[in-house]
């Protein structure tokens, strides 16, 4: 069989840094959707335990090293991380009958926005309260990035991860780059 090379949605796109804030495409990871069947919660919890993960509550993620299980909707979570390809086959076997498990890796574009203007930039596009009290480090939200559906994770104090449908990658980049430019220009004008 032909050896196919996986390409990310924005492969070759250089990062954009303005006012010490950087918009970049995240390194490619495996993304596996886990949707527990009715009555499957216990079996799902048992299958996740050896991997040090729990099925996340809404707006949360369960993290073990580089592996994350991110809440992405009603009775749905995404297993994200470089370790996922090795664990996914075993997990899929133990989850058989307890949850629907599908590979979503090529369906999403993942961007990171990091730096002092990250939050202000997102606030132009995202209808969420992004202050620390409402959206702390580790928080997850399924929300909108302007008109696009989005999964937003606050990875660190000044770092956010934005997941959009792969077909929206360039639009998401354009929206975020424009919002970051606006914020950087405003900072320039004030200094």
């Amino acid at each position, binding site marked *: 069989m032909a050896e196919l090379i996986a390409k990310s949605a924005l492969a070759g796109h250089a990062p954009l840094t303005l006012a010490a804030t950087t918009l970049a495409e995240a390194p490619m990871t495996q993304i596996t959707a886990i949707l*527990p069947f009715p*009555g499957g*919660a216990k079996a799902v919890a048992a299958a996740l335990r050896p991997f040090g993960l729990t099925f996340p509550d*809404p707006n949360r993620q369960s993290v073990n090293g580089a592996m994350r299980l991110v809440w992405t909707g009603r*009775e749905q979570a995404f297993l994200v991380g470089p370790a996922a390809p090795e664990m996914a086959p075993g997990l899929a076997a133990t989850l058989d009958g307890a949850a629907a498990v599908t590979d979503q890796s090529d369906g999403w574009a993942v961007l990171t926005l990091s730096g002092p203007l990250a939050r202000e930039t997102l606030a132009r596009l995202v*209808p969420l309260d992004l202050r620390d009290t409402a959206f702390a480090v580790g928080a997850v939200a*399924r929300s909108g990035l302007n008109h696009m559906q989005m999964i937003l994770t606050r990875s660190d104090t000044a770092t956010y991860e934005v997941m959009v449908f792969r077909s929206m990658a360039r639009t998401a980049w354009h929206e975020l780059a424009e919002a970051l430019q606006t914020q950087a220009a405003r900072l320039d004008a004030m200094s």
Partner: protein
Amino acid sequence: MRLTCPLCGPRDRREFYYYGSDDYLNRPAEGDGPQAWDAYLHLRDNPAGITHDLWYHDMGCSSWLRVTRNTVTHEIHAVDAVAAPAKGGAK
């Protein structure tokens, strides 16, 4: 305007899609006559006061929600998930 999704919490109106009266939840039974289907599809109350709507959290968790609100005061009284949580299933 904000709705408090039972899963996601308080969210902006932009995240939701409005579907109309919750009459759509009361689908006629198989074999019901044309009048029942006509009522289901077309007959709607237009209350000054409490009303029940269907909303879809399309930019959020993809839940169908039943919203109880007041058309006079614009108060939102309740937002409930249409789907009952599956017994022993995921949260």
